[in-house]
C-alpha cells in the first residue's frame, strides 16, 4: 500500500491542531456507546514521546549497528485544567477519589493525523486499545490543574476517521 502524502501545499508547515489525540471509553458495563473527548484543551505544548529502548553495538571496523528493542509511547498533558463539561476530567476524578487505579487502563486512544487525508477520503488515524491514562497531580494556583499522562499500548489498528468531531466513525485499513 502506498504511503499517503501530506495533504498540505509544498513547504507549508502543519499546524499543531492537525495532530489530534482523542480518548475513548465506555461508562459502566451495560453501555455500548463510547464517550470521546479530545485532549489538549488549554494545553500549549504536548508531544508524544516514544521512549525508545535503543541498543547500539560497534563492530571491529567501527561500524555502528543500532537496534530499537521497543517503544513505550507516552504523551503528557500539563496543564490539563478541570473545565466545565469535561467528561474525562470527571471520569479521572471519580477514579482518583476511589483510588481505583486499576480502572485507569481502560482507555482507547486515537491519534489522528489530520494533515493526511481529507474530509472526503477520511483522515489518517491510529487506534491504540488498552491504553492507560494516569493523573499525575491535582492542584495548581488560580485554576485546578489535573495533569495527565497517556501511556499508549502499541496495540495499534491503523485506519481513517470520517470527520473531525467526537462522533467520528473509525474505519480500519
Amino acid at each position, binding site marked *: 500500500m502506498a504511503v499517503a502524502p501530506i495533504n498540505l501545499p509544498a513547504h507549508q508547515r502543519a499546524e*499543531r*491542531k*492537525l*495532530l*489530534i489525540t482523542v480518548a475513548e471509553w465506555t461508562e459502566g458495563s451495560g453501555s455500548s456507546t463510547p464517550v470521546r473527548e479530545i485532549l489538549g*484543551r*488549554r*494545553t500549549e505544548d504536548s508531544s508524544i514521546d516514544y521512549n525508545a529502548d535503543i541498543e547500539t553495538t560497534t563492530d571491529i571496523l567501527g561500524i555502528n549497528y543500532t537496534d530499537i528493542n521497543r517503544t513505550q509511547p507516552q504523551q503528557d498533558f500539563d496543564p490539563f485544567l478541570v473545565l466545565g463539561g469535561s467528561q474525562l476530567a470527571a471520569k479521572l476524578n471519580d477514579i482518583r477519589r476511589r483510588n481505583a487505579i486499576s480502572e485507569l487502563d481502560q482507555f482507547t486512544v486515537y491519534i489522528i493525523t*489530520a494533515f493526511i487525508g481529507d474530509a472526503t477520503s477520511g483522515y489518517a488515524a491510529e487506534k491504540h486499545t488498552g491504553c492507560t491514562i494516569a493523573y499525575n497531580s491535582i492542584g495548581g494556583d488560580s485554576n485546578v490543574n489535573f495533569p495527565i499522562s497517556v501511556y499508549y499500548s502499541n496495540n495499534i489498528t491503523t485506519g481513517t476517521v470520517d470527520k473531525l*468531531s467526537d462522533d467520528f466513525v473509525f474505519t480500519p485499513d
Partner: protein
Amino acid sequence: MATNKNQAVIDYLITCPTILNSPLYFNFINAKDDTNQFFTDATDVYTNKNYIDGSVEKIYTFTIITFKSAADIAVVKLPGHENENLSDMTDVQNLIEWIAEQNELKNFPNFGEDCEIEEISTTTEEPKFEGIDEQTSPPLAVYSTSIQIRYIDFSKLIWR
C-alpha cells in the same frame, strides 16, 4: 461575521449605573464634568496563548477616562463635611467595584459564539489619578481605569 467587540463592551458597560448615569464617548474627548471616555487599547498579539487544539487565549483591553470637577478646598476634619474630590473619587471607584462584581457573577460582554470570556478585571484596585486639567472652568480631575477581558477564541478550531 465577527462580533464587534467594541460595541459588545459598550452594550455591557451601559448596564453599569456609574456609566449609565453619565455621558459616554467612544475614542473621543469631551472634557466636561462627569463624562466618561472609552478608549480602545492595542494589545500586543505576542500576549496571545496558542493551544494545541487551535484555540487562542487573547486579551482585549480598554481604558475609561473620567472627568470630574475638582475643588481647590483643603480636606478638613469637620463633622458632616464631605470633600468633593474624595467623593468624586469614590464615584469613579464604583466602576471598579462593579467590574469585580460582574466577574464574580460571570456576567460578561457577548463576544459571539466563537469566543468564550474567562475573566474581566481592572488592572488596578483603584482609579489612576492622571492630573488636573486647569484649562477648563471649573478645573477637571482626570481619572483613568484600565480594564482587560481575557477570552478564548475558538474560531480556528478544526475539532467541532
